[in-house]
């Protein structure tokens, strides 16, 4: 029998934050975690977090995990790879997988912070290996450096779907598309912009119909949905993918809480069945607390604050002393939840206790600043609780007025063009531009988190916000940043400073298939991968064969590529139709019509 003052089940952001608070106050705390590493889901988060510095804004998730672990002191005992199997009236049982033994624990106070599990959705063949929850893909690639596959279809455009798509691109996979059943992107615009800049299409009002494959995923069929979310017949499209990544939400893990007698309520806004708790994170059972995703699906910042609140309340009761930090943390939580993205959470929590909000400014930057000066352009239009642009600016040129939910405003007269805000912005939503930097040339400074880094002088293809090619550009400077958000200065033709937001490094010299419309082998192969597997489809999609030569140059090459990629023989593939005119003819001559010829 292990006796402890405070048992924390789950060593994620909520559990660790609670343990930091109680450890600091000399309370014997035991943290039990199932995983192989402390930090919960933070260990696989490679993106920088929103929020403010008090809660590690602009720090990458896995680094936050390390920072939290480093703050635990000798009062905190850790048991990893251990599963709490039951909560009974008199005792808590756990199973230590490493030692293969069972432990009984008798705590005075308990925090259940076990998080959530991946939501699953029904579609044909969803049992196939290769169908993964988004968290699983993250765990594999970011915690263990293993890619589950090369070609991915993402289901769901919430923040997790968007972030994981971006991280898959960083790890070298192809994301064929992000499929979203609703009519708008679920996550933050800044996250959506990050994947769009690399040309990943987000297909709204679409859902997955089935996975293709016998032993594992080899493809997926998606379709457009009607108002009742049923697939409209005839809109189905096939993708050749080896992974279907499901990012459709999380389900709070309420099992232990319910076992302990905590009242469970169904509140869809919080993720489904959630335990009752009050402002102090206390459940209806006096000595049991909950925090983090278990208490309602949100994100790591609020989990950390909730954990600290729970820890401080336990500390107050065990030490019998007032905890002044408690009120500050509660105020912090109110502020974080005041933005539009927390509407749902507030509505859900309203069922337990009344909600407060603080007001914030929705008036962002109105102008694009003084043309010709090197200056940041902040493309952050939603009230995300976040302010590293302001706090990182050495000249005080950026203001997030009032509180962190407000939109940032730049005072261009104070800005020195140093680029620190570009590096710090967790949403990669700040760029720098300078028009007419050289005669006929604009300068664009882009945040870049990909490998390989381009080199000074290298020719690259500048891309717009949707990842479409815009122009040839040249790399002027590469500034490596300690936080891995590097700054790439590229020189683009004049007039494009407000258009270029990304670039790609040309993989190989372009080989043209279609001379008339300038279509390359690469583009045709990409279209076939996207599911255009018929010559006529390719023609309509790429305009291949629609040029003045009538397909004389490109038709056989295209059919050859099609045959090679699909494994069908040329005999099985339709060569498409031939339409008049067979060679260019003047409109004028056609309009004039037939003339009488002398016989």
């Amino acid at each position, binding site marked *: 029998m292990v006796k402890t003052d405070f048992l924390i089940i789950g060593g994620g952001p909520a559990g660790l934050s609670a343990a930091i608070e109680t450890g600091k106050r000399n309370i014997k705390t035991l943290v039990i975690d199932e*995983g192989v590493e402390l930090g919960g889901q933070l260990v696989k988060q490679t993106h920088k977090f929103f929020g403010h510095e008090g809660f590690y804004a602009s720090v990458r998730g896995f680094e936050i995990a390390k920072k939290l672990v480093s703050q635990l002191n000798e009062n905190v005992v850790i048991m990893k*790879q251990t599963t709490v199997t039951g909560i009974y009236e008199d005792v808590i049982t756990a199973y230590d997988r490493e030692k293969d033994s069972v432990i009984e624990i008798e705590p005075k106070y308990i925090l259940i912070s076990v998080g959530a599990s991946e939501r699953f959705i029904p579609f044909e063949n969803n*049992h196939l*290996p*290769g169908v*993964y929850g988004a968290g699983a893909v993250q*765990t594999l690639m970011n915690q*263990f450096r*293993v890619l589950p596959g090369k070609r991915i279809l993402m289901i769901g455009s919430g923040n997790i779907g968007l972030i994981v798509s971006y991280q898959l691109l960083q790890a070298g996979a192809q994301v064929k598309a992000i499929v979203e059943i609703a009519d708008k992107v679920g996550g933050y615009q800044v996250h959506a912009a990050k994947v769009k800049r690399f040309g990943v299409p987000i297909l709204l009002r679409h859902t997955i119909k089935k996975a293709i494959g016998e032993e594992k995923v080899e493809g997926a069929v998606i379709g457009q949905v009607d108002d009742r979310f049923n697939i409209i017949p005839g809109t189905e499209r096939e993708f050749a993918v080896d992974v279907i990544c499901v990012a459709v939400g999380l389900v709070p893990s309420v099992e232990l809480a319910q076992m302990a007698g905590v009242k469970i309520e169904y509140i869809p806004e919080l993720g489904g069945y959630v335990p009752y708790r009050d402002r102090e994170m206390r459940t209806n059972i006096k000595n049991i607390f909950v925090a983090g995703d278990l208490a309602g699906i949100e994100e790591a910042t609020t989990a950390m604050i909730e954990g600290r609140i729970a820890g401080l309340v336990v500390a107050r009761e065990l030490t019998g002393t007032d905890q002044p930090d408690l009120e500050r943390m509660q105020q912090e939580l109110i502020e974080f939840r005041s933005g539009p993205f927390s509407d749902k959470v507030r509505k859900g929590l309203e069922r337990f206790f009344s909600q407060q909000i603080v007001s914030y400014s929705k008036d962002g930057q109105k102008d694009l600043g003084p043309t010709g000066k090197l200056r940041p352009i902040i493309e952050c239009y939603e009230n995300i609780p976040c302010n590293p642009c302001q706090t990182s600016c050495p000249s005080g040129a950026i203001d997030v007025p009032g509180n962190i939910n407000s939109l940032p405003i730049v005072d261009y007269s104070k800005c020195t063009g140093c680029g620190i805000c570009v590096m710090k912005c967790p949403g990669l939503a700040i760029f720098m531009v300078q028009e007419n930097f050289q005669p006929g040339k604009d300068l664009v400074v882009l945040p870049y988190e990909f490998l390989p880094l381009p080199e000074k002088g290298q020719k690259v293809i500048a891309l717009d916000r949707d990842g479409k090619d815009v122009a040839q550009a040249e790399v002027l400077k590469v500034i490596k940043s300690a936080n891995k958000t590097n700054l790439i200065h590229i020189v683009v033709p004049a007039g494009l400073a407000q258009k270029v937001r990304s670039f790609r490094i040309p993989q190989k010299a372009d080989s043209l298939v279609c001379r008339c419309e300038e279509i390359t082998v690469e583009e045709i192969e990409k279209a076939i991968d996207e599911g255009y597997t018929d010559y006529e489809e390719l023609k309509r999609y790429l305009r291949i064969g629609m040029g003045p030569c009538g397909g004389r140059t490109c038709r056989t090459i295209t059919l050859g590529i099609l045959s090679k990629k699909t494994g069908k023989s040329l005999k099985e593939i339709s060569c498409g139709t031939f339409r008049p005119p067979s060679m260019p003819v003047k409109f004028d001559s056609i309009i004039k019509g037939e003339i009488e010829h002398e016989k």
Partner: protein
Amino acid sequence: MRRILAHPILDVEKPKVVKFFFEGKELEAFEGETIAAALVANGVDVFGRTEHSRPRGFYCAIGKCSSCLMIVDGVSNVRSCITLVKEGMQVKRQIGRGEITW
């Protein structure tokens, strides 16, 4: 090979190689990774079969969905996604619900 050898954010260190057996075949894994990660890195996607003979892979990777249950050193129903791979470990696909061991 599905290992990520270079990454723009994460350092890719050279970890210690351990050997384990999958269905009797010797495979290489990295110390500190889970059985599931090691298998996927080696190109193994099918972790077992259900009672109805459907191929089964893993889904959540954090020990919650139980889709990744395998037979490890003779013990059934081991969650391969949160169990670390060890030198000499014998890992087998599980068919159906698995045997009870004492």
